[in-house]
C-alpha cells in the first residue's frame, strides 16, 4: 500500500513557474480529463478547487498527467466568521500534496454570523456552499487584513485573492470595487488573482467603465488571471462558466497584459460537459498568443 502511494506521488506532475513564461490552464470540470488527453501539451496545468478534492478525492488523479494549481473557496477571507482550523489544516495538506505555487482564494465570505447571534449565542454560523461579495468598506478591509494575518502563516505558499463579481450593492458599502481591491492589496501586501470577467461584471452592474476602472487596479500585483463567460439575465450581468468569454473580456485581458505579467491564465469553462472542444482549443491558443507564447 505504502509503495503504491509512493509510486503515485512520484508520478505526480508539478507546475514549474520559474521559467518566467505565463502558464495557461483550465479550471477543472467534467470535460477536462478527455480534453487534456486529446490535446497533449496544450495545457500547462489544471486549476482544482480544494473543496472538490475534499469531496471527490479521485479528482486528484488528474495530477498524474498534468500539474495542479489549488483554488479555494473555504477560507472566508472577507468574512467575520473564521475558517475552521480543521479546514485550514486540510487545505494545507492539499497545498503540500499538490505542490501548488499559490492558493487562489476568493476575496469574499462563505459563512457569516447567525441572524440571532446576540439573542441566542449558541446558534451556529450560517454556512453557504458558495462565496458572496462582501460589504465594500474600510471595516471589511480591516477584517481581510486580520484574517490573512492568521491564515497566511499556516501555508508555505502565498494566498492570492480573487475579486468577487458584484451583483448587487451590499448595504453599508463605502467604496467601489476597484477601490476596495486596491485598499486590500495596499493594506495586506497581497497579490491578486484577477478574474477579468468578475471585474467586467462588477463594472457593468454598477454602471462603470471597465476599461478606465481597470487602470486603477494595482495590476503589477496580478499573479493569475481568470477568464470565463458572462450573460445578462433578469436585468443583471452574471458569471457564466458554461459560455465562452466575449470580446470585451478579451479586450480587458489584453489591456491588463500591457501592465501585468501574470504567472498563469486560467480559462474557467467548467460548468458544462457540452462546452465545445473546438472553442476551448481556440481560446487556449488565443491566450497563448496574447501572452506571447505562440
Amino acid at each position: 500500500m505504502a509503495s503504491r502511494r509512493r509510486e503515485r506521488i512520484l508520478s505526480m506532475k508539478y507546475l514549474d513557474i520559474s521559467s518566467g513564461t505565463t502558464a495557461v490552464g483550465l479550471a477543472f470540470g467534467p470535460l477536462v480529463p478527455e480534453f487534456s488527453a486529446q490535446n497533449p501539451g496544450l495545457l500547462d496545468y489544471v486549476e482544482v478547487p480544494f473543496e472538490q478534492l475534499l469531496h471527490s478525492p479521485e479528482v486528484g488523479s488528474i495530477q498524474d498527467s498534468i500539474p495542479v494549481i489549488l483554488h479555494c473557496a473555504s477560507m472566508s477571507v472577507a468574512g467575520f466568521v473564521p475558517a475552521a482550523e480543521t479546514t485550514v489544516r486540510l487545505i494545507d495538506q492539499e497545498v503540500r500534496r499538490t505542490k501548488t505555487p499559490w492558493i487562489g482564494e476568493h476575496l469574499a465570505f462563505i459563512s457569516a454570523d447567525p441572524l440571532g447571534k446576540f439573542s441566542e449565542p449558541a446558534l451556529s454560523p450560517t454556512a453557504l456552499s458558495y462565496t458572496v461579495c462582501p460589504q465594500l468598506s474600510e471595516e471589511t478591509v480591516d477584517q481581510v487584513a486580520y484574517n490573512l494575518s492568521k491564515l497566511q502563516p499556516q501555508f508555505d505558499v502565498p494566498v492570492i485573492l480573487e475579486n468577487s463579481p458584484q451583483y448587487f450593492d451590499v448595504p453599508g458599502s463605502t467604496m467601489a470595487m476597484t477601490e476596495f481591491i486596491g485598499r486590500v492589496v495596499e493594506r495586506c501586501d497581497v497579490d491578486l488573482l484577477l478574474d477579468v470577467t468578475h471585474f467586467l461584471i462588477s463594472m457593468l452592474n454598477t454602471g462603470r467603465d471597465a476599461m478606465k476602472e481597470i487602470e486603477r487596479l494595482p495590476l503589477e500585483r496580478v499573479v493569475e488571471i481568470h477568464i470565463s463567460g458572462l450573460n445578462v439575465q433578469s436585468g443583471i450581468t452574471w458569471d457564466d462558466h458554461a459560455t465562452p468569454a466575449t470580446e470585451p473580456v478579451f479586450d480587458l485581458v489584453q489591456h491588463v497584459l500591457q501592465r501585468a505579467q501574470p504567472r498563469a491564465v486560467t480559462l474557467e469553462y467548467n460548468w458544462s460537459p457540452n462546452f465545445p472542444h473546438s472553442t476551448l482549443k481556440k481560446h487556449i491558443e488565443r491566450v497563448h498568443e496574447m501572452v506571447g507564447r505562440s
Partner: protein
Amino acid sequence: MIAGQIHAVIAAGLKEPALLARWQEAPELLRQYGIEPGAFDLGALWKFAGLTTKVRHNGLRADIPQTFRLLNITGLEIEVFGAYATFHAAKNFGPTVQARIDDLLVFLERWLDFDRLEHALLWDLIRHEAALARLRTLENISGSQIGTLVSRRRPRLSSVPRLSGDVILHEMRSDPRVIETILRRKDPKLEQVPLATSYFGYWHFQGEVYVLELDALGFYLLFTIDGTRSAADLGGLIGASPELPGGLLKSLGDLADIGIITFD
C-alpha cells in the same frame, strides 16, 4: 452599517429563501437587524439565490443540455431558478441527477405559464430530454428474450394488450425535436417552432431508445394499456364509439407492428 451584521443578513436570506421571501413582502422586518429597508435590493439578492441554485444544478447539463440552452437564450435562467430556490426552500436537492430532474419537473409543472411561448417550449423540451435520459439509463434486456415476446397476430376485441419494453408518454404543444434543431443554430428563433398538439412515446426496447410520434388514439391506448384490460375494455375507457371497433383494432395492430405492444 456593521459589515458582520450585513453579511449575516445576506447569508441568512440566501440560505433560507423563505426568509428572503418574507423580507420581500415586509421589508420593515429588516430594521430589527439594523438595516434600513430601502438600503437593500432584495430583488437582486433573490436573483443571486437563483444563480446559486442554477450552478448547483450544473450536474443536470449532461442529461438536459438543450433545456439549459433554452433557459439561457430566453433569459429565463435566473427567473426559473430563483423561483425554484423559493419553491424548494428548506429541502435538500435530490441525491441523484435523476431525482433532481424529477424535482425540477414537479416545480416547473406548477410554476410555468403555458400561455407564454417560451414556457410552453421549455416544458416540452425538458420532458423530452428527461424521458430520453431516463430510458438511456435502463438496463438492457437481451434482444432474443424480447424477440420471443413480440406477437404479430392481429388483435380481436377480446385480446389483452401488454406494453413491451419501457414507455414514457407525453402530450406536447410542439415537436421538441424541432426545438432542439432550432436551438443548435447560432441565432435561434424560437418563434419559428410550429405549435400544434403532438403525442410522443419514448420507448426503450432491445437496448435502444426510440421516439415515436403517435396519433391521439394510439397515445391514449398506450396510456390505458395495463396488461389486464382487453381491447374492448380500452375502447370503453377512452370513449371509442362502439360502432368503430375497426379503428381501435387497427390502431392496436399498428402498435403491435411497431413492437411496442404484444397480445395475450
